[in-house]
Protein backbone atom coordinates (compact mmCIF):
# COMPACT_ATOMS: atom_id res chain seq x y z
CA UNK A 1 0.00 0.00 0.00
CA UNK A 2 1.44 3.35 -1.10
CA UNK A 3 -0.19 6.27 0.60
CA UNK A 4 0.85 9.55 2.14
CA UNK A 5 -0.49 8.79 5.59
CA UNK A 6 0.63 8.13 9.14
CA UNK A 7 -1.35 5.58 11.20
CA UNK A 8 -4.27 4.31 9.06
CA UNK A 9 -6.56 4.78 12.05
CA UNK A 10 -5.83 8.55 12.03
CA UNK A 11 -6.32 9.24 8.31
CA UNK A 12 -9.74 10.87 8.53
CA UNK A 13 -8.98 13.04 11.56
CA UNK A 14 -5.65 14.24 10.15
CA UNK A 15 -7.17 14.94 6.77
CA UNK A 16 -9.97 17.01 8.31
CA UNK A 17 -7.35 19.10 10.08
CA UNK A 18 -5.84 19.99 6.71
CA UNK A 19 -9.27 20.69 5.23
CA UNK A 20 -10.00 23.13 8.04
CA UNK A 21 -6.69 24.93 7.52
CA UNK A 22 -7.16 25.11 3.76
CA UNK A 23 -10.74 26.37 3.84
CA UNK A 24 -11.18 28.22 7.10
CA UNK A 25 -13.07 30.95 5.25
CA UNK A 26 -16.04 28.72 4.43
CA UNK A 27 -16.04 25.93 6.99
CA UNK A 28 -14.83 24.70 10.34
CA UNK A 29 -14.07 21.21 11.56
CA UNK A 30 -15.08 19.67 14.87
CA UNK A 31 -13.41 16.64 16.41
CA UNK A 32 -15.09 13.74 18.18
CA UNK A 33 -17.53 13.32 16.68
CA UNK A 34 -15.87 14.48 13.47
CA UNK A 35 -17.97 17.10 11.69
CA UNK A 36 -17.46 19.62 8.91
CA UNK A 37 -19.66 22.65 9.54
CA UNK A 38 -20.38 25.84 7.60
CA UNK A 39 -18.37 28.70 9.04
CA UNK A 40 -21.52 30.75 9.63
CA UNK A 41 -23.72 27.93 10.98
CA UNK A 42 -26.36 27.85 12.30
CA UNK A 43 -27.90 30.03 9.61
CA UNK A 44 -30.86 31.78 11.17
CA UNK A 45 -34.21 30.83 9.73
CA UNK A 46 -32.96 28.47 7.04
CA UNK A 47 -33.29 24.74 6.62
CA UNK A 48 -29.98 23.00 7.34
CA UNK A 49 -29.00 20.60 4.57
CA UNK A 50 -26.82 17.85 6.00
CA UNK A 51 -25.19 14.83 4.46
CA UNK A 52 -22.50 12.37 5.33
CA UNK A 53 -21.20 8.91 4.85
CA UNK A 54 -17.98 7.01 4.82
CA UNK A 55 -14.81 8.96 4.02
CA UNK A 56 -12.69 8.27 0.96
CA UNK A 57 -15.07 9.92 -1.53
CA UNK A 58 -13.66 13.43 -1.23
CA UNK A 59 -14.58 16.12 -2.02
CA UNK A 60 -17.93 14.50 -1.16
CA UNK A 61 -19.22 15.48 1.41
CA UNK A 62 -16.92 17.84 3.37
CA UNK A 63 -15.80 19.69 0.24
CA UNK A 64 -19.42 20.68 -0.42
CA UNK A 65 -19.91 22.47 2.88
CA UNK A 66 -20.39 26.20 2.48
CA UNK A 67 -22.80 28.88 1.35
CA UNK A 68 -25.41 27.54 -1.03
CA UNK A 69 -24.75 23.86 -0.46
CA UNK A 70 -24.28 21.76 2.71
CA UNK A 71 -24.56 23.15 6.21
CA UNK A 72 -22.74 20.17 7.64
CA UNK A 73 -21.07 16.98 6.51
CA UNK A 74 -20.61 13.95 8.73
CA UNK A 75 -17.54 11.94 7.72
CA UNK A 76 -17.36 8.35 8.87
CA UNK A 77 -14.28 6.17 8.82
CA UNK A 78 -13.06 5.27 5.33
CA UNK A 79 -15.98 3.64 3.47
CA UNK A 80 -17.93 3.32 6.75
CA UNK A 81 -21.14 5.16 7.50
CA UNK A 82 -20.88 7.58 10.44
CA UNK A 83 -22.70 6.77 13.65
CA UNK A 84 -26.03 8.24 14.78
CA UNK A 85 -24.58 10.43 17.52
CA UNK A 86 -22.31 12.16 14.98
CA UNK A 87 -25.22 12.83 12.66
CA UNK A 88 -27.27 14.07 15.57
CA UNK A 89 -24.45 16.40 16.58
CA UNK A 90 -24.42 17.82 13.05
CA UNK A 91 -28.13 18.55 13.30
CA UNK A 92 -27.64 20.16 16.69
CA UNK A 93 -24.82 22.36 15.37
CA UNK A 94 -26.59 23.64 12.28
CA UNK A 95 -30.37 23.30 12.51
CA UNK A 96 -32.81 25.62 14.24
CA UNK A 97 -36.59 25.70 14.19
CA UNK A 98 -36.56 25.63 10.35
CA UNK A 99 -35.34 22.07 10.63
CA UNK A 100 -32.89 19.86 8.80
CA UNK A 101 -32.87 17.79 5.64
CA UNK A 102 -30.70 14.67 5.85
CA UNK A 103 -29.38 13.44 2.51
CA UNK A 104 -28.67 9.73 2.83
CA UNK A 105 -27.03 7.57 0.19
CA UNK A 106 -28.78 4.24 -0.10
CA UNK A 107 -26.51 1.81 1.70
CA UNK A 108 -27.73 -0.32 4.58
CA UNK A 109 -25.25 1.26 6.99
CA UNK A 110 -26.05 4.84 6.06
CA UNK A 111 -29.78 4.27 6.11
CA UNK A 112 -29.71 2.61 9.54
CA UNK A 113 -27.40 5.14 11.18
CA UNK A 114 -29.16 8.21 9.75
CA UNK A 115 -32.56 6.73 10.67
CA UNK A 116 -31.53 6.49 14.30
CA UNK A 117 -30.02 9.97 14.19
CA UNK A 118 -33.24 11.43 12.80
CA UNK A 119 -35.19 9.85 15.65
CA UNK A 120 -32.78 11.23 18.22
CA UNK A 121 -32.89 14.73 16.71
CA UNK A 122 -36.66 14.73 16.45
CA UNK A 123 -36.77 13.72 20.10
CA UNK A 124 -34.74 16.85 20.87
CA UNK A 125 -37.40 18.90 19.11
CA UNK A 126 -35.75 19.64 15.75
CA UNK A 127 -37.88 18.91 12.70
CA UNK A 128 -35.94 16.46 10.54
CA UNK A 129 -36.66 14.94 7.14
CA UNK A 130 -34.55 12.27 5.47
CA UNK A 131 -34.30 11.50 1.79
CA UNK A 132 -32.52 8.46 0.43
CA UNK A 133 -30.81 8.81 -2.93
CA UNK A 134 -30.50 5.68 -5.06
CA UNK A 135 -29.43 6.73 -8.54
CA UNK A 136 -27.10 3.89 -9.55
CA UNK A 137 -28.63 2.04 -12.49
CA UNK A 138 -25.91 -0.61 -12.23
CA UNK A 139 -27.97 -2.34 -9.57
CA UNK A 140 -30.56 -4.10 -11.66
CA UNK A 141 -33.24 -5.57 -9.54
CA UNK A 142 -33.90 -3.76 -6.32
CA UNK A 143 -36.46 -6.30 -5.08
CA UNK A 144 -33.73 -8.80 -4.41
CA UNK A 145 -31.02 -6.46 -3.19
CA UNK A 146 -30.47 -3.69 -0.68
CA UNK A 147 -31.71 -1.47 -3.53
CA UNK A 148 -29.87 0.88 -5.84
CA UNK A 149 -26.88 2.69 -4.45
CA UNK A 150 -26.53 6.42 -4.01
CA UNK A 151 -23.69 7.66 -6.21
CA UNK A 152 -23.04 10.68 -8.48
CA UNK A 153 -26.55 12.06 -8.19
CA UNK A 154 -25.74 12.87 -4.57
CA UNK A 155 -23.51 15.78 -5.64
CA UNK A 156 -26.26 17.34 -7.73
CA UNK A 157 -28.86 16.74 -5.02
CA UNK A 158 -26.68 18.46 -2.42
CA UNK A 159 -26.14 21.47 -4.69
CA UNK A 160 -29.79 21.89 -5.62
CA UNK A 161 -31.28 21.39 -2.17
CA UNK A 162 -28.55 23.61 -0.70
CA UNK A 163 -29.57 26.38 -3.09
CA UNK A 164 -33.23 25.93 -2.20
CA UNK A 165 -32.45 26.14 1.50
CA UNK A 166 -30.33 29.22 0.85
CA UNK A 167 -33.22 31.04 -0.84
CA UNK A 168 -35.33 30.30 2.22
CA UNK A 169 -37.51 27.35 1.15
CA UNK A 170 -39.39 25.58 3.93
CA UNK A 171 -38.44 22.11 5.09
CA UNK A 172 -41.50 20.72 3.30
CA UNK A 173 -40.47 22.40 0.07
CA UNK A 174 -36.83 21.36 0.29
CA UNK A 175 -37.91 17.77 0.94
CA UNK A 176 -40.32 17.80 -2.00
CA UNK A 177 -37.60 19.21 -4.23
CA UNK A 178 -35.15 16.55 -3.06
CA UNK A 179 -37.61 13.80 -3.95
CA UNK A 180 -38.12 15.35 -7.35
CA UNK A 181 -34.36 15.39 -8.02
CA UNK A 182 -34.02 11.80 -6.84
CA UNK A 183 -36.80 10.83 -9.23
CA UNK A 184 -35.02 12.17 -12.28
CA UNK A 185 -31.32 11.55 -11.76
CA UNK A 186 -29.47 8.39 -12.84
CA UNK A 187 -25.82 7.32 -12.79
CA UNK A 188 -23.47 4.52 -13.69
CA UNK A 189 -19.77 3.96 -13.18
CA UNK A 190 -16.86 1.87 -14.34
CA UNK A 191 -13.54 1.04 -12.67
CA UNK A 192 -10.21 0.37 -14.36
CA UNK A 193 -8.37 -0.26 -11.09
CA UNK A 194 -9.30 -0.94 -7.48
CA UNK A 195 -9.00 1.41 -4.51
CA UNK A 196 -7.00 0.40 -1.44
CA UNK A 197 -8.63 1.01 1.92
CA UNK A 198 -5.92 2.27 4.33
CA UNK A 199 -6.83 -0.11 7.17
CA UNK A 200 -7.06 -3.06 4.77
CA UNK A 201 -3.78 -2.40 3.01
CA UNK A 202 -4.53 -4.38 -0.15
CA UNK A 203 -6.60 -3.42 -3.21
CA UNK A 204 -10.31 -4.03 -2.77
CA UNK A 205 -10.49 -6.31 -5.79
CA UNK A 206 -8.13 -7.80 -8.33
CA UNK A 207 -8.50 -6.87 -11.97
CA UNK A 208 -6.40 -8.23 -14.81
CA UNK A 209 -4.56 -5.73 -16.99
CA UNK A 210 -7.21 -6.00 -19.69
CA UNK A 211 -10.30 -6.12 -17.48
CA UNK A 212 -12.62 -3.45 -16.13
CA UNK A 213 -15.49 -3.51 -13.64
CA UNK A 214 -18.64 -2.20 -15.28
CA UNK A 215 -21.27 -0.87 -12.91
CA UNK A 216 -18.82 -0.26 -10.07
CA UNK A 217 -19.89 1.30 -6.80
CA UNK A 218 -17.87 3.87 -4.88
CA UNK A 219 -16.61 1.59 -2.12
CA UNK A 220 -14.54 -0.86 -4.03
CA UNK A 221 -17.45 -3.26 -3.94
CA UNK A 222 -17.23 -5.14 -7.24
CA UNK A 223 -19.50 -4.03 -10.07
CA UNK A 224 -22.23 -5.45 -12.27
CA UNK A 225 -19.93 -7.42 -14.52
CA UNK A 226 -16.31 -7.76 -15.40
CA UNK A 227 -15.66 -7.02 -19.06
CA UNK A 228 -12.60 -6.59 -21.27
CA UNK A 229 -11.03 -3.14 -21.51
CA UNK A 230 -12.41 -1.39 -24.57
CA UNK A 231 -12.00 1.89 -26.44
CA UNK A 232 -13.30 5.10 -24.94
CA UNK A 233 -15.92 5.30 -27.68
CA UNK A 234 -17.27 1.84 -26.86
CA UNK A 235 -17.06 2.27 -23.11
CA UNK A 236 -18.79 5.64 -22.98
CA UNK A 237 -21.50 4.33 -25.31
CA UNK A 238 -22.04 1.46 -22.88
CA UNK A 239 -22.38 3.88 -19.97
CA UNK A 240 -24.69 6.27 -21.82
CA UNK A 241 -26.91 3.42 -22.98
CA UNK A 242 -27.22 2.00 -19.48
CA UNK A 243 -28.39 5.36 -18.14
CA UNK A 244 -30.58 6.49 -20.97
CA UNK A 245 -32.42 3.20 -21.21
CA UNK A 246 -33.38 3.56 -17.60
CA UNK A 247 -36.19 5.99 -16.92
CA UNK A 248 -36.70 8.94 -17.23
CA UNK A 249 -34.76 10.32 -20.20
CA UNK A 250 -36.23 10.90 -23.63
CA UNK A 251 -35.54 12.80 -26.81
CA UNK A 252 -36.29 16.46 -26.28
CA UNK A 253 -35.11 16.46 -22.68
CA UNK A 254 -32.72 19.02 -21.32
CA UNK A 255 -30.22 17.52 -18.94
CA UNK A 256 -27.25 18.19 -16.74
CA UNK A 257 -24.39 15.83 -17.63
CA UNK A 258 -21.96 15.14 -14.82
CA UNK A 259 -18.80 13.35 -15.92
CA UNK A 260 -17.02 12.25 -12.78
CA UNK A 261 -13.55 10.89 -12.14
CA UNK A 262 -13.46 8.15 -9.51
CA UNK A 263 -10.11 9.52 -8.34
CA UNK A 264 -7.12 8.54 -10.40
CA UNK A 265 -8.49 8.99 -13.90
CA UNK A 266 -6.76 12.15 -15.13
CA UNK A 267 -8.60 15.15 -16.59
CA UNK A 268 -7.22 14.48 -20.06
CA UNK A 269 -9.20 11.21 -20.13
CA UNK A 270 -12.17 12.68 -18.31
CA UNK A 271 -12.70 15.48 -20.82
CA UNK A 272 -12.24 12.98 -23.61
CA UNK A 273 -15.01 10.82 -22.16
CA UNK A 274 -17.20 13.86 -21.56
CA UNK A 275 -16.92 14.89 -25.20
CA UNK A 276 -18.00 11.44 -26.35
CA UNK A 277 -20.93 11.39 -23.93
CA UNK A 278 -22.21 14.76 -25.14
CA UNK A 279 -22.02 13.61 -28.73
CA UNK A 280 -23.94 10.40 -27.98
CA UNK A 281 -26.63 12.26 -26.07
CA UNK A 282 -27.02 14.73 -28.92
CA UNK A 283 -27.54 11.80 -31.27
CA UNK A 284 -30.41 10.70 -29.06
CA UNK A 285 -31.98 14.14 -29.12
CA UNK A 286 -31.10 14.84 -25.50
CA UNK A 287 -29.75 18.35 -24.99
CA UNK A 288 -27.01 18.93 -22.47
CA UNK A 289 -27.56 22.41 -21.04
CA UNK A 290 -25.42 22.17 -17.90
CA UNK A 291 -22.23 20.22 -17.20
CA UNK A 292 -20.00 19.26 -14.33
CA UNK A 293 -16.68 17.58 -15.11
CA UNK A 294 -14.14 16.59 -12.50
CA UNK A 295 -13.41 14.33 -9.53
CA UNK A 296 -16.35 15.10 -7.24
CA UNK A 297 -17.41 11.72 -5.84
CA UNK A 298 -14.44 9.46 -5.72
CA UNK A 299 -13.31 6.13 -4.40
CA UNK A 300 -9.85 6.82 -3.02
CA UNK A 301 -7.25 6.24 -5.77
CA UNK A 302 -9.51 4.16 -7.98
CA UNK A 303 -9.16 4.74 -11.73
CA UNK A 304 -12.54 5.00 -13.41
CA UNK A 305 -15.36 7.32 -14.26
CA UNK A 306 -19.06 7.69 -13.74
CA UNK A 307 -21.72 9.49 -15.71
CA UNK A 308 -24.75 11.10 -14.11
CA UNK A 309 -27.73 12.56 -15.96
CA UNK A 310 -30.22 14.86 -14.29
CA UNK A 311 -33.31 15.92 -16.18
CA UNK A 312 -33.58 19.68 -15.87
CA UNK A 313 -36.38 22.19 -15.92
CA UNK A 314 -36.29 25.94 -15.34
CA UNK A 315 -36.42 25.58 -11.55
CA UNK A 316 -33.67 22.98 -11.28
CA UNK A 317 -31.50 24.92 -13.73
CA UNK A 318 -31.86 28.10 -11.70
CA UNK A 319 -31.02 26.28 -8.49
CA UNK A 320 -27.99 24.68 -10.14
CA UNK A 321 -26.82 28.10 -11.32
CA UNK A 322 -27.40 29.74 -7.94
CA UNK A 323 -24.28 30.98 -6.13
CA UNK A 324 -22.24 28.41 -4.25
CA UNK A 325 -19.07 28.83 -2.24
CA UNK A 326 -17.53 25.59 -1.05
CA UNK A 327 -14.04 24.12 -1.35
CA UNK A 328 -15.03 22.02 -4.37
CA UNK A 329 -17.79 23.98 -6.10
CA UNK A 330 -17.67 27.71 -6.34
CA UNK A 331 -19.44 30.10 -8.61
CA UNK A 332 -21.62 33.19 -8.62
CA UNK A 333 -19.96 34.50 -5.46
Amino acid sequence: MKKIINDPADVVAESLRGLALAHGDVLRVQEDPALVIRADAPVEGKVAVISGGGSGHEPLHGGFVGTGMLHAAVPGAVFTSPTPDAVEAAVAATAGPAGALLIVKNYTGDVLNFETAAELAEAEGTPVRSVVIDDDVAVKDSTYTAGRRGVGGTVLLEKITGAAAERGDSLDDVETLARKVIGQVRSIGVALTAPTVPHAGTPSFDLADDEIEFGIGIHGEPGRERIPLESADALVARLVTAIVEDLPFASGDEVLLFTNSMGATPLVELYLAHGIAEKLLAERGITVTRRLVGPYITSLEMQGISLTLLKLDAELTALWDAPVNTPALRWGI
Partner: protein
Amino acid sequence: MGCGAEGVTKAVLAAAGVVAEHRTELIELDRAIGDADHGENMNRGFTVVVAALADATPETPGEVLKIAAKTLISKVGGAAGPLYGTAFLRAATKAADQSEVDAQAVVELLRAALDGVRARGKAEVGDATMIDALTPAVAAAEAAAAVAGADIAAVLSAAADAADQGAESTVDLVPRKGRASYLGERAVGHMDPGARSTALILRAFAEAAR
Protein backbone atom coordinates in the same frame (compact mmCIF):
# COMPACT_ATOMS: atom_id res chain seq x y z
CA MET B 1 -25.44 -21.57 38.18
CA GLY B 2 -26.49 -18.05 37.15
CA CYS B 3 -24.25 -15.44 35.63
CA GLY B 4 -23.94 -11.90 37.04
CA ALA B 5 -22.46 -8.65 35.80
CA GLU B 6 -18.97 -10.01 36.20
CA GLY B 7 -19.64 -13.11 34.12
CA VAL B 8 -21.32 -11.12 31.35
CA THR B 9 -18.42 -8.67 31.37
CA LYS B 10 -16.02 -11.57 30.99
CA ALA B 11 -18.03 -12.82 28.02
CA VAL B 12 -18.09 -9.40 26.31
CA LEU B 13 -14.33 -9.01 26.86
CA ALA B 14 -13.83 -12.46 25.34
CA ALA B 15 -15.86 -11.33 22.31
CA ALA B 16 -13.65 -8.23 22.02
CA GLY B 17 -10.60 -10.48 22.10
CA VAL B 18 -11.85 -12.76 19.37
CA VAL B 19 -12.84 -9.82 17.16
CA ALA B 20 -9.35 -8.33 17.53
CA GLU B 21 -7.78 -11.68 16.71
CA HIS B 22 -9.92 -12.14 13.60
CA ARG B 23 -9.83 -8.51 12.44
CA THR B 24 -7.86 -9.30 9.29
CA GLU B 25 -9.93 -12.35 8.45
CA LEU B 26 -13.13 -10.32 8.68
CA ILE B 27 -11.61 -7.56 6.53
CA GLU B 28 -10.64 -10.14 3.95
CA LEU B 29 -14.10 -11.70 3.88
CA ASP B 30 -15.59 -8.24 3.40
CA ARG B 31 -12.98 -7.36 0.77
CA ALA B 32 -14.19 -10.25 -1.37
CA ILE B 33 -17.83 -9.23 -1.51
CA GLY B 34 -18.12 -5.85 0.23
CA ASP B 35 -15.98 -2.89 1.12
CA ALA B 36 -13.21 -4.39 3.22
CA ASP B 37 -14.09 -2.78 6.52
CA HIS B 38 -16.08 -5.25 8.65
CA GLY B 39 -13.09 -6.38 10.75
CA GLU B 40 -11.89 -2.81 11.18
CA ASN B 41 -15.34 -1.56 12.16
CA MET B 42 -15.97 -4.34 14.69
CA ASN B 43 -12.52 -4.05 16.18
CA ARG B 44 -12.75 -0.26 16.49
CA GLY B 45 -16.04 -0.67 18.34
CA PHE B 46 -15.05 -3.53 20.65
CA THR B 47 -11.77 -1.82 21.56
CA VAL B 48 -13.81 1.06 22.96
CA VAL B 49 -16.22 -1.38 24.63
CA VAL B 50 -13.26 -2.81 26.56
CA ALA B 51 -12.23 0.68 27.67
CA ALA B 52 -15.80 1.63 28.57
CA LEU B 53 -16.26 -1.49 30.70
CA ALA B 54 -12.98 -0.79 32.48
CA ASP B 55 -14.17 2.72 33.36
CA ALA B 56 -17.63 1.67 34.51
CA THR B 57 -18.90 -0.47 37.38
CA PRO B 58 -22.00 -2.12 35.98
CA GLU B 59 -23.94 -4.02 38.59
CA THR B 60 -26.23 -6.14 36.44
CA PRO B 61 -25.96 -8.13 33.19
CA GLY B 62 -28.33 -5.57 31.68
CA GLU B 63 -25.99 -2.68 32.50
CA VAL B 64 -23.02 -4.47 30.95
CA LEU B 65 -24.99 -5.15 27.79
CA LYS B 66 -26.22 -1.57 27.64
CA ILE B 67 -22.71 -0.15 27.84
CA ALA B 68 -21.67 -2.48 25.04
CA ALA B 69 -24.73 -1.54 22.97
CA LYS B 70 -24.25 2.21 23.26
CA THR B 71 -20.55 1.96 22.50
CA LEU B 72 -21.11 -0.21 19.46
CA ILE B 73 -23.80 2.15 18.16
CA SER B 74 -21.57 5.20 18.53
CA LYS B 75 -18.26 3.69 17.43
CA VAL B 76 -18.79 1.01 14.78
CA GLY B 77 -20.80 2.73 12.05
CA GLY B 78 -21.60 1.02 8.77
CA ALA B 79 -24.30 -1.66 8.71
CA ALA B 80 -22.78 -3.71 11.50
CA GLY B 81 -22.85 -0.85 14.06
CA PRO B 82 -26.60 -0.34 14.23
CA LEU B 83 -27.29 -4.08 13.84
CA TYR B 84 -24.96 -5.33 16.58
CA GLY B 85 -25.87 -2.25 18.63
CA THR B 86 -29.54 -3.14 18.38
CA ALA B 87 -28.79 -6.76 19.26
CA PHE B 88 -27.02 -5.80 22.48
CA LEU B 89 -29.56 -3.10 23.29
CA ARG B 90 -32.53 -5.46 22.94
CA ALA B 91 -30.74 -8.05 25.08
CA ALA B 92 -30.02 -5.37 27.68
CA THR B 93 -33.65 -4.32 27.74
CA LYS B 94 -34.74 -7.92 28.06
CA ALA B 95 -32.32 -8.47 30.96
CA ALA B 96 -33.85 -5.44 32.68
CA ASP B 97 -32.45 -5.18 36.20
CA GLN B 98 -32.08 -8.88 37.00
CA SER B 99 -28.88 -9.36 38.94
CA GLU B 100 -28.18 -12.70 37.31
CA VAL B 101 -29.18 -14.58 34.18
CA ASP B 102 -29.62 -18.33 33.98
CA ALA B 103 -29.62 -20.63 30.96
CA GLN B 104 -33.27 -19.93 30.16
CA ALA B 105 -32.70 -16.20 30.41
CA VAL B 106 -29.73 -16.44 28.07
CA VAL B 107 -31.99 -17.98 25.46
CA GLU B 108 -34.41 -15.11 25.88
CA LEU B 109 -31.66 -12.52 25.54
CA LEU B 110 -30.48 -14.20 22.33
CA ARG B 111 -33.99 -14.26 20.93
CA ALA B 112 -34.46 -10.59 21.78
CA ALA B 113 -31.21 -9.82 19.99
CA LEU B 114 -32.30 -11.77 16.92
CA ASP B 115 -35.68 -10.04 16.85
CA GLY B 116 -33.93 -6.69 17.08
CA VAL B 117 -31.60 -7.40 14.16
CA ARG B 118 -34.50 -8.65 12.07
CA ALA B 119 -36.57 -5.58 12.86
CA ARG B 120 -33.73 -3.20 11.96
CA GLY B 121 -32.30 -4.96 8.93
CA LYS B 122 -35.38 -6.71 7.51
CA ALA B 123 -33.28 -9.66 6.41
CA GLU B 124 -34.58 -13.22 6.29
CA VAL B 125 -32.79 -16.52 6.61
CA GLY B 126 -31.18 -17.19 3.24
CA ASP B 127 -30.31 -13.56 2.48
CA ALA B 128 -26.66 -14.24 3.41
CA THR B 129 -26.30 -11.98 6.43
CA MET B 130 -25.62 -12.34 10.13
CA ILE B 131 -29.26 -13.50 10.37
CA ASP B 132 -28.12 -16.80 8.86
CA ALA B 133 -25.84 -17.37 11.83
CA LEU B 134 -28.03 -15.89 14.55
CA THR B 135 -31.30 -17.61 13.64
CA PRO B 136 -30.09 -21.22 13.92
CA ALA B 137 -28.05 -20.19 16.98
CA VAL B 138 -31.17 -19.10 18.82
CA ALA B 139 -33.03 -22.24 17.81
CA ALA B 140 -30.16 -24.42 18.98
CA ALA B 141 -29.87 -22.50 22.24
CA GLU B 142 -33.57 -23.02 22.85
CA ALA B 143 -33.28 -26.73 22.22
CA ALA B 144 -30.26 -27.02 24.50
CA ALA B 145 -31.99 -25.16 27.30
CA ALA B 146 -34.89 -27.56 27.08
CA VAL B 147 -32.63 -30.40 28.20
CA ALA B 148 -32.90 -30.95 31.95
CA GLY B 149 -29.99 -29.43 33.89
CA ALA B 150 -28.61 -27.51 30.95
CA ASP B 151 -26.26 -24.73 32.04
CA ILE B 152 -25.31 -21.49 30.27
CA ALA B 153 -22.16 -23.05 28.86
CA ALA B 154 -24.17 -25.82 27.21
CA VAL B 155 -26.69 -23.37 25.79
CA LEU B 156 -24.06 -21.04 24.37
CA SER B 157 -21.97 -23.89 23.07
CA ALA B 158 -24.98 -25.21 21.13
CA ALA B 159 -25.66 -21.71 19.84
CA ALA B 160 -22.06 -21.30 18.69
CA ASP B 161 -22.07 -24.67 16.91
CA ALA B 162 -25.24 -23.74 15.06
CA ALA B 163 -23.91 -20.28 14.23
CA ASP B 164 -20.79 -21.84 12.75
CA GLN B 165 -22.94 -23.98 10.50
CA GLY B 166 -25.13 -21.02 9.66
CA ALA B 167 -22.15 -18.92 8.71
CA GLU B 168 -20.89 -21.79 6.59
CA SER B 169 -24.26 -21.92 4.82
CA THR B 170 -23.83 -18.36 3.53
CA VAL B 171 -21.01 -19.54 1.28
CA ASP B 172 -23.50 -21.03 -1.15
CA LEU B 173 -26.09 -18.26 -0.99
CA VAL B 174 -26.85 -15.38 -3.34
CA PRO B 175 -26.92 -12.35 -0.99
CA ARG B 176 -30.06 -10.25 -0.92
CA LYS B 177 -29.27 -7.74 1.79
CA GLY B 178 -26.32 -5.48 2.52
CA ARG B 179 -23.50 -4.57 0.23
CA ALA B 180 -22.89 -8.11 -1.03
CA SER B 181 -26.34 -8.09 -2.65
CA TYR B 182 -24.99 -5.85 -5.47
CA LEU B 183 -22.81 -8.74 -6.52
CA GLY B 184 -25.59 -11.26 -6.96
CA GLU B 185 -24.33 -14.62 -8.25
CA ARG B 186 -20.75 -13.37 -8.12
CA ALA B 187 -20.90 -13.49 -4.31
CA VAL B 188 -21.52 -17.22 -4.29
CA GLY B 189 -18.53 -19.06 -2.84
CA HIS B 190 -17.82 -16.42 -0.19
CA MET B 191 -18.80 -16.48 3.47
CA ASP B 192 -20.72 -13.46 4.75
CA PRO B 193 -18.44 -11.47 7.08
CA GLY B 194 -21.26 -10.53 9.47
CA ALA B 195 -22.36 -14.16 9.79
CA ARG B 196 -18.78 -15.08 10.53
CA SER B 197 -18.40 -12.39 13.22
CA THR B 198 -21.66 -13.52 14.82
CA ALA B 199 -20.36 -17.09 14.99
CA LEU B 200 -17.04 -15.91 16.42
CA ILE B 201 -18.70 -13.83 19.11
CA LEU B 202 -21.05 -16.62 20.16
CA ARG B 203 -18.08 -18.99 20.36
CA ALA B 204 -16.27 -16.48 22.59
CA PHE B 205 -19.34 -16.27 24.84
CA ALA B 206 -19.48 -20.05 25.06
CA GLU B 207 -15.79 -20.33 25.94
CA ALA B 208 -16.17 -17.59 28.58
CA ALA B 209 -19.06 -19.47 30.16
CA ARG B 210 -17.19 -22.71 30.64
